[in-house]
């Protein structure tokens, strides 16, 4: 289901034709008012179509999530379907996630040091880097990386299975495709994306430290004291909670896109691309909304504290 693609394109083309027919009418002219009314009606109906198809797609996606949860709690998947997915998500992604984490740490140190240097606050560098890393950049960038690496691969794999009737074959042999294909992938992402986020955080902390300590010669005592002062358990919890949501979103969106793949190579390509795009958008939206609600939560728990 790609309700966002085709109608927009059609609308754009129709708008152009309509515009041209108003500016330069080439045949016997119906009244301008009638033409504008027609144009407006079409515009409204196009938007209506878009809204309705988006609602249908959203509803369909919700049913998909619901059935994933139902299967997860009613019958736990077998090990033979779980382990390959755990390996794919958890182990194979380790190098790229570690690399991402390291670079975030180093780049954060690089950028913040010059900013803080203006105010003579370079001693605070550890706090700034590690807080940003643990709370925000670690989870978000690790999730983005994994949406690209794991999510697109899932969408492409399931899409190919859909196109070559392998998903139908599963149903035909009495295995439920959601139970067999989606639940293990969902569990793998739910379990390993937070784990990988911790890994990214760790590598980021290490990268930031080495850059600050070796390159910028910041005293490590101040670096770590300020880090400990700034970063508390709640920050770590925030980051990991976010990554739990990101992991679920990535797996569900990618599997849904794969399941609803259009035929042919183009369909599979589109499923992979749109799974990344949608997953990324959802990661950003979740990040903001979780950030806001966690801030409210923090302030209600510690009324005097600053989040």
């Amino acid at each position, binding site marked *: 289901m790609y309700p966002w693609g085709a109608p927009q394109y059609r609308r754009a083309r129709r708008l152009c034709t309509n515009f041209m027919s108003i500016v330069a009418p080439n045949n016997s002219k119906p009244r301008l008012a009638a033409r504008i009314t027609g144009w407006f009606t079409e515009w409204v109906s196009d938007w209506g179509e878009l809204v309705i198809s988006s609602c249908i797609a959203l509803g369909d996606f919700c049913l998909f999530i619901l059935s994933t949860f139902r299967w997860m709690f009613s019958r736990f998947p077998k090990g033979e379907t779980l382990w390959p997915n755990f390996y794919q998500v958890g182990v194979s992604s380790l190098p790229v996630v570690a690399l991402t984490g390291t670079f975030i740490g180093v780049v954060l140190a690089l950028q913040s040091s010059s900013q803080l240097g203006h105010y003579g606050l370079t001693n605070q560098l550890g706090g700034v880097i590690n807080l940003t890393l643990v709370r925000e950049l670690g989870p978000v960038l690790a999730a983005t990386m994994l949406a690209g690496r794991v999510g697109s691969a899932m969408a492409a794999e399931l899409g190919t*299975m859909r196109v*070559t*009737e*392998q998903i*139908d074959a599963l*149903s*035909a*042999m*009495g*295995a439920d495709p959601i139970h067999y294909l989606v639940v293990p992938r969902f569990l793998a992402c739910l379990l390993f994306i937070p784990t990988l986020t911790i890994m990214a955080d760790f590598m980021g902390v290490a990268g930031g430290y080495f850059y600050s300590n070796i390159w910028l010669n910041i005293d490590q005592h101040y670096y770590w004291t300020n880090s400990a002062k700034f970063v508390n358990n709640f920050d770590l919890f925030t980051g990991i909670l976010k990554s739990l949501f990101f992991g679920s979103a990535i797996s569900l969106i990618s599997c849904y896109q794969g399941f609803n793949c259009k035929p042919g190579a183009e369909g599979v390509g589109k499923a992979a691309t749109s799974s990344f795009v949608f997953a990324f958008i959802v990661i950003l939206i979740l990040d903001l909304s979780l950030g806001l609600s966690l801030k409210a939560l923090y302030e209600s728990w510690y009324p005097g504290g600053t989040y």
Partner: protein
Amino acid sequence: MMIEQLLDQEQESIVDVEKLSVTFGSQEVLKDITLRIPPGQTLALLGESGCGKTVLMKSIIGLVKPTVGTIEFDGENINQLTERQLSRMRLRYGFIFQNAALFDSMTIGQNVAFPLRQHGRFSDNQIREMVLSRLSEVGLPDSVVFKKPAELSGGMRKRVGLARALIMNPELIMYDEPTTGLDPIMSDVINELILRTRSRNPVTSIVVTHDMHTARKVADRVVMLIPRQRLDPGENQVIFDGSVKELESCRDRRVQQFVNGEAGERLMEMRANGHDQ
């Protein structure tokens, strides 16, 4: 007498399709199809591409939900079953997909063993024996067990698909274009396998095909569908239902064109309609 026979037939049918219509979006693929298949029959479902043969077969197994109408298998309406009941029901079906639809992440052995592992409580030794015997029945050597589907030829993959569909001893086997894309010899091998399967177990088979050779060789009964767009108003989509002999002598121009493989005025029609349906 006639009525009694008819009634008997009605009671005996294993697959009972009643006034089935399937619509995808705005496209009506099947309309008002009624079909009863008695147990043990081999039915060939003929028709040109796009006439809804595969959709009809997929709705019999419950992969496509009917828009209107009911489908009964052995007296049970399959659209009223829960997902679990439907999964259990599907053990009694065997489905051979057009391109075999083997799981390409698994080896051939794992593919053929899949239904057993999914449902049966068999020991590994039993599974291995059953897989090897099924593979040898379809003429494949033991050495293919550890290969991946991508390493096999089209004909071999179809035979693996057949072995996989047969492993649970289904009561109803559905073949989706079993000979499409194969050379004449391999096509005939598949035809032979269809015949042999039937002689070994008392199964009901539905063979969707547009290969007249297959229909002549394996079918007891032939049903021919034509695309909705080609129907005269008020006409049913099933334009022929009878034996192979009757098919050859059928006077309907569209049936004759199909049997003899002649395009006739179809190209002009397609051009006039602006699409190839």
